[in-house]
């Protein structure tokens, strides 16, 4: 019994750790896509930010400086996407792909520039686990939920905050309207361009939080290609969660659980490679089963040109 409970607690903690970067990125994707801009560049934004965070933390020795560097990098590259998609009306998929390729190649190159070789950076300052007294003493779920990195607590806070911003503020109303019927926003005297820039900029900074969690919390170093498809899974969580912050968080937790479980499956029963495929298969099944019926913002992916 005791053993099962401990195992459950461990799975729960692992689920949260896996889900946190997905949730950050999915929230970011939501701001972008609700405003009408597809952001498949989440993967790249996370990777660049993970790297920038590690560089900042390495040179300053301070995790907060790393965080700031990462947010700056995420914002910068998101703005590149915004300029391409919103101002120049480029194809949003191509722009997002370009961001992903740029991130992969760019971080690989910069690894050599900053650290002399590829692979993994030296150990950098990171966000330590913070135990919340009292709450962390609750059996099983206590340690899982309340003995986590500061970034996880930030995530707890950002999910409801995002929900509030999107559904309960004038900003959110305008953002959603921009992704549905931009003409209506324009005739209401609100700039669609500005709303979309805000949406994409926020997606960059939130994706950055996801990246920072990878390189400065889950690990204390940056490894080339460390996002490993998480940006795309975050996108799947966003769709599965129907572009709703709560829904996306639940979907991300589901994916996180899938990963957590696979770590524990005895390797001699099923080959490890198959076990590791599971989260991705789940993603495909979810997208095939629910993605088709999910109702995307109707102006998603369509550049808006003022008459």
């Amino acid at each position, binding site marked *: 019994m005791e053993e099962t409970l401990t195992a459950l607690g461990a799975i729960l903690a692992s689920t949260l750790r896996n889900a946190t970067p997905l949730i950050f990125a999915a929230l970011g994707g939501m701001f972008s896509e609700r405003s009408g801009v597809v952001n498949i560049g989440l993967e790249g934004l996370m990777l660049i930010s993970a790297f920038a965070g590690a560089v900042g933390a390495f040179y300053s020795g301070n995790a907060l400086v790393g965080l700031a560097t990462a947010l700056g990098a995420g914002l910068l590259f998101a703005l590149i996407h915004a300029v391409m998609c919103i101002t120049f009306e480029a194809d949003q998929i191509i722009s997002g792909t370009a961001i992903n390729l740029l991130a992969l190649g760019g971080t690989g190159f910069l690894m050599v520039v900053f650290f002399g070789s590829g692979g993994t950076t030296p150990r950098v300052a990171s966000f330590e686990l913070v135990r919340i007294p009292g709450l962390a003493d609750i059996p099983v779920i206590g340690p899982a939920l309340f003995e986590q990195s500061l970034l996880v607590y930030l995530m707890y806070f950002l999910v409801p905050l995002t929900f*509030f911003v999107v559904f*309960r*503020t*004038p900003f*959110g*109303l*305008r953002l*959603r*309207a921009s992704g*549905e*019927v931009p*003409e*209506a*926003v*324009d*005739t*209401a*005297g*609100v700039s669609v361009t500005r709303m979309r820039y805000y949406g994409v900029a926020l997606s960059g900074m939130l994706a950055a939080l996801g990246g920072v969690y990878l390189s400065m919390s889950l690990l204390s170093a940056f490894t080339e290609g460390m996002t490993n498809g998480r940006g795309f899974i975050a996108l799947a969580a966003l769709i599965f969660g129907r572009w709703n912050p709560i829904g996306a968080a639940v979907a991300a937790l589901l994916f996180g659980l899938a990963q957590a479980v696979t770590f524990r499956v005895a390797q001699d029963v099923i080959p490890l490679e198959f076990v590791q495929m599971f989260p991705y298969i789940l993603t495909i099944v979810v997208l095939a089963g629910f993605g088709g*019926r999910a*109702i995307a913002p*109707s102006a998603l992916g369509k550049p808006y040109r003022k*008459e």
Partner: protein
Amino acid sequence: MVEARARDNGPGAKAPKVLEMTGVTKTFGPVTANDDVSLVLHRGEILGLLGENGAGKSTLMKILYGLYKPDSGTIYVDGEEVQIRDPKDAVRRGIGMVHQHFTLIPPLTVAENIVLGAEPRKGGALDLNRAMRETEVLSERYGLKVDPRARVADLSVGVQQRVEILKALYRDARILILDEPTAVLTPQETEDLYRTLQELVADGLSIILITHKLGELLGVSDNITIIRDGRVVDTVKTSETEEGSLARLMVGREVLLRVEKGENEVGTPRLVAQGLVVLSSTGATAVHGVDIEVRAGEILGVAGVDGNGQVELAEALAGTRLVHKGRVYLDGEDVTGLGADERQERGLAYVPEDRSHKGLVQDFSLWENNALKTYDEPPFSGRFGRIFPKVMRRRAAQNLKAYDVRPSEPDARAGALSGGNQQKAILARELSGNPKAIIAAQPTRGVDVGAIEFIHRQLLEQREEGKAILLISLELEEVRSLSDRIVVMYDGRIVGEVGPDATDEELGLLMAGRGSGVGER
């Protein structure tokens, strides 16, 4: 129609000018959309702005609303010269606009739509309760009944239009511009709208009503400004004019307001649908068990308000949308399982309602478009899938001439043609193959009067040749003047059949789903 107006706010009346536009000129590249246009609007006046599609009415109003920047010209509001750079400026000056294509956001509620861009706030948050209250207050004050909590997607088009008007009123509009407001309404809803407009002007608002339906303006407007080819032709007092002279001013020549239609021999059923159930693109049932029989030599009109399953019905008959249940027969043969291409080969012509996307490939030349459906048949193609562009081009040249497409140049890009000529190019392709049955979905939507006349004549000619024609149209006048029988679609069902002499009243009730036939389904 609404009865004659009791008030008299003619041009000679004392009411002050609330709006004046003088010498407005706007060009788009080589095209002059507005050429030295001037107009005056008085307080409490309903001014009709009449003109054909493409005459420049909408351009002028978009200038007034700050959506376009004029090349030259001056705008005065309440006697003061103003610059209107964007819709915000327009709103600040008390100008509100109800667009032809509603600018509402379907998944949002009525209240959210109304306050968008001018939201009531509590702290940093959106004060939804106040938004709802204010919506209710406005809606009661002007008798525009809406539920502020309802999702716009769930509302009928008539109610959506009310939301659009409320949106303008919420922003304290004193000058209201309505662009083709009746295009999507049933006759009864149109009357409701006009009653509302009367109440608004009684309250001190001034209204510009843009339309190409001249009959409607006679009942509701005080004055009418007529625009043709971007120029103001005349401004007349409504009480001193009549339909014929308005039509002449609008088109610039005598027009046949009604087509002549002779008696015709009706033959066997050629296009038949039995118990047809069709799903919409979102998966909802759009057509609920429709039975239709179009016989040789007759035009069967389908009337109804937009979005009641007409598009899905047409597509299911044409073979571009799956038939969920039921059967389709063409000249006695069951074609339910056949695709659009096979139906076309068996003699079915289809003029889709969305000319620019479904009717033509905009970036293709006219000869390519003309060959879209027959490219794989001799004499246009040979062995091993070879095609013969020369033959296609020659055939296209003949067709374009025969159907008066201008320019009749096979190498012209389809997208470069005017709406009327695009439609004629589609007719040329569809009708030249000597079909047995024709589905014409809104064949004259958005085309000029000249092209309307031509298209109507073509359809009647086809009828005389014994073709079976299904005519789907939102324009009651068109359905009535061309059809031998009329069925009315409401909520995916045929709710009644009437003759071409049916009154507005009868048709309107059926279109609103309140006809006598509805209870029997």
